[in-house]
């Protein structure tokens, strides 16, 4: 039996790594990859808590979170395609410049 504390520490580390990636990358593609890592940390926390209490509520929430992450990736990649066709680059900072 894996202790709850170790699992939550791993989930925190994964979440913070993803947050660091979101803060330092300017490429929208890698920003979406970092968001996946961040959500993976949250899903890990849900699984660990569900296993600790021996109930399936946490697993259902985790699968719901998986669906949410997939929807988020679909919309994010669509925005990436649109950014490339409009601005011809991947830099998310280029969206802060106003144009016309």
């Amino acid at each position, binding site marked *: 039996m*894996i202790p709850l504390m170790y699992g939550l*520490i791993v989930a*925190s*580390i994964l979440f913070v790594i993803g947050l660091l990636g979101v803060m330092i990358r300017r490429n929208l593609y890698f920003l979406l990859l970092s968001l996946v*890592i961040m959500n993976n940390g949250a899903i890990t926390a849900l699984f660990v808590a569900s296993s600790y209490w021996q109930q399936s509520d946490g697993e*259902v929430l985790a699968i719901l979170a998986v*669906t949410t992450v997939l929807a988020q990736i679909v919309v994010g990649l669509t925005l990436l*395609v649109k950014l490339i066709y409009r601005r011809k680059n991947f830099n998310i900072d280029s969206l802060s410049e106003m144009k016309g």
Partner: protein
Amino acid sequence: MIVVFYIASIIAVVASIIVIFCRRVEKAILYLAISLFASALIFILLKTYISAVLYILFFICGVILLFLAVSILLKIHKDSVETNKHGISPKIWLGPLVLAFILLVILIYGVVGTDYSQFKQSHELMHQMSIYAYVLMIELAVFLLLGAAVIAYYFIHRMFSEK
């Protein structure tokens, strides 16, 4: 068993660090797959088998397929934003690293300092209530995916009809 958990978590953390610092797209996707599979191994060790299988099928396959399809479709091979030869310059990552480290210390302090024995009671009622809400939650999740697909189609369709 705890040794396998340690190895899997170390692999997940190291692969995640490589993902956020590397500049080639294929390498990043491969390391992301390794990180997610290590997480799936942790879930299998926690004896949540069916959810782990659903995680592998939906999450890993979906994420890898979507990212790979977009990178092939748009011919993305390298990160062209970071032009520095030796990766991202320390001027960019030093401040966020300090902030993220402080957040990590606070999170681990909160996890370690919690008394888990007092969480053991009074969850029966919530379980009884929530078991009827699962059908509604599954429908909501399906509608969310459908909405995402409709938004993606609408964006791409409008973008091509403008040209």
